[in-house]
């Protein structure tokens, strides 16, 4: 049987080494989700609702296990819920597993992450040789990744909460702009930079994961990273979009807004929004970009 994963900052090379990598869980938020209503509280990230519904519906029964990351609070919390619901017999489905990613910039956290990675590898039947081979293959794929094609239209940067899919990109395209912004699937699929191939593969992969910045638990300057992104893509406008459930980027909103405006960018700030984008954000974006273009 296959294994899948849920969350950012996970060891894709290790999953590949199992030979049973089914990839990330997906979500469909445009439907009723009674199981999620029953068990999840309102501040859970919206994707968790779809996962719980799929789990309860048996849509994931083809999987052997799903690996959750501790580098994202909703993901790690969901792991405990699913374990308990399985124990109570309320749901069946694959075995939830946790990868205990520790993000503090301290040796004990790096060591914790490495130990967790070795434990996961052992549980999934991945030894050092298999992981080394998968890292080599993964690094080759990283090197061959196609750089993004430069846009011909002016670029609007979407920042804040990860998007559910490309529906906001379509809204921006509708206004004659080109959109750059990461979806949640982009975050989860991001393999990160190349992994060091010279030493112990578990140590190297653990260090790569610990150093990554894309997750909710990473320690880094988010506004500086945003400014760098805006500069690198040549953004001419920005949408700072935060969903109601966001518990991370909200704390950086004032600084993010300041750096973008410091770059001379017009910024549309939209907070407490619906992840499905069915709250009129399309009209607001159209009016914003029309105003910028005028």
């Amino acid at each position: 049987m296959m294994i899948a994963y849920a969350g950012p900052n996970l060891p894709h090379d290790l999953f590949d080494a199992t030979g049973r990598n089914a990839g990330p869980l997906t979500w469909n938020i445009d439907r009723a989700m009674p199981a999620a209503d029953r068990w999840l509280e309102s501040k859970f990230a919206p994707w968790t609702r779809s996962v719980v519904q799929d789990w309860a519906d048996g849509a994931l029964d083809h999987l052997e296990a799903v690996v959750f990351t501790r580098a994202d609070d909703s993901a790690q919390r969901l792991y405990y819920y699913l374990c308990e619901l399985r124990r109570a017999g309320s749901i069946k489905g694959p075995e939830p597993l946790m990868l205990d990613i520790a993000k503090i910039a301290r040796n004990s956290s790096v060591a914790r992450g490495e130990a967790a990675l070795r434990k996961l590898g052992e549980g999934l039947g991945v030894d050092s040789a298999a992981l080394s081979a998968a890292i080599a293959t993964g690094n080759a794929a990283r090197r061959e990744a196609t750089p993004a094609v430069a846009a011909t239209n002016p670029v609007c940067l979407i920042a804040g909460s990860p998007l559910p899919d490309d529906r906001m990109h379509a809204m921006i395209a509708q206004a004659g702009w080109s959109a750059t912004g990461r979806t949640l699937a982009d975050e989860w699929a991001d393999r990160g930079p190349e992994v060091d191939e010279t030493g112990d593969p578990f140590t190297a992969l653990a260090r790569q994961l610990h150093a990554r910045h894309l997750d909710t638990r990473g320690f880094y300057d988010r506004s500086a990273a945003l400014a760098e992104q805006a500069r690198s893509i040549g953004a001419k406008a920005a949408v700072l979009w935060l969903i109601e459930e966001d518990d991370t980027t909200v704390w950086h909103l004032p600084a993010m807004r300041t750096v973008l405006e410091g770059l001379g960018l017009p910024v549309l700030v939209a907070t407490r929004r619906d992840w499905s984008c069915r709250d009129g954000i399309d009209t607001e974006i159209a009016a914003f970009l029309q105003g910028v273009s005028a």
Partner: protein
Amino acid sequence: MSDAPTTTSGQRSRKDLACTSAANAYQKQFGADLKRRVVDEGEPFAIVQADTPHEIFHVMGIPIITNQWWSAYISAKQLSNHYFEVMAQAGYPKNSCKYCSLGLACTLANDPKTAPWGGLPKPTVLVARMTCDCIQHVFGQWADALGSEFFPMEAPAWEHKDPRWFAHSKDQWEQVYDPDRIALAVTEMRDLITLLENRTGRKFDEAKLQYLMERINEQEGYIWEAAQAIGTARPCPVSIAEQMPNTMIPQWHRGSDWAVNHAKRFRDEVMERVAAGAGCATQEKIRLMWIGAGVWHDPGFYQALEERMGAVFVWSMYMPFAGPQYIRELQGRPMDALASRVCSMNEVLHLPPWMNGWMTSEAERCGVDACVVLLPPENRLSQSGTKITAEALEKAGVPVLMIDADMVDAGNWDHDKMVGLVADFLVQRGLA
């Protein structure tokens, strides 16, 4: 939890025990002494979360200000709405976690005339466990605003899931909390000690920790003894409105002579009331459980239905938590025992299977008839585990009412409406 006066929007609680006033008076004096030490005299101090190893600071003689206590203090001073507005004006969305960020808001406001104590000076360090997404961001920014340093502690994954953890945690803590999680917490605590020694010049003495841990065991033993008596006594001798201050004020000072003596005094007063058959209500009919932090802006809420319906809040987490989560057989390893206390303090209260396992067991132990759960709409951590726990309680025959409200934000709280909600629920579920 707070020594500050009750708000006018809420209602004061009735005091049946002499020791309650003594605890509040002690905390008021402590607050004045703390202000003198850290604000007036510039003594090194730390800002810490409630679930961090306070014992280290106590051993080193370093004053601490607990974020949750400071939030409750600000709330009780009726300043929370002002600071929520400050955050909004600074560009933070209005739905950001309020319980965690009131202290940050007070600092960002930078208004000594308004702030309690004129605002906090620069601490030596801020310490928090990373139990939720918001904490590292709040504490990181708070440390920056104060010109200080944030010392985060991991909240590692916990794969050994024992729903009956509370039955083994005193003596089998290594198995219950996972040896590797305890080892990580010990390593982090030793790093914290090094930082504190370097910054303050004060030394940590493990023999002092051993003694403090023994004293804490004595203190928590008294509280646990009283909690057991309250669980079995009919009528309930002490409402949670008095259980909370008599547990939590000593808890902030755990292991000190005052705290141990106060816990003993509280135990004795509880036992006297049990022996005398004294109850909170004239005629107790319904025994209620409260799940969630205390509603610090309206302590009178908990006693509002005692005479009208004979409905008494007999259980909240603070008092019975003293037994399973604080008492530790030291086994010659005080640092490890302390690590086992802090490394899951939040998890057992907010994650399944620990939360629902414990609270269902406690409902049975205390003969609870119905439960009211606080569901703060903007606080993921405080919401966490409530629905699964509510389902477990209902399955065990305990009706549950969930109310959307916040422990420090009185904005969406109306005393009469909330009391009415509980009254209607009890009627609808056939209990009154």
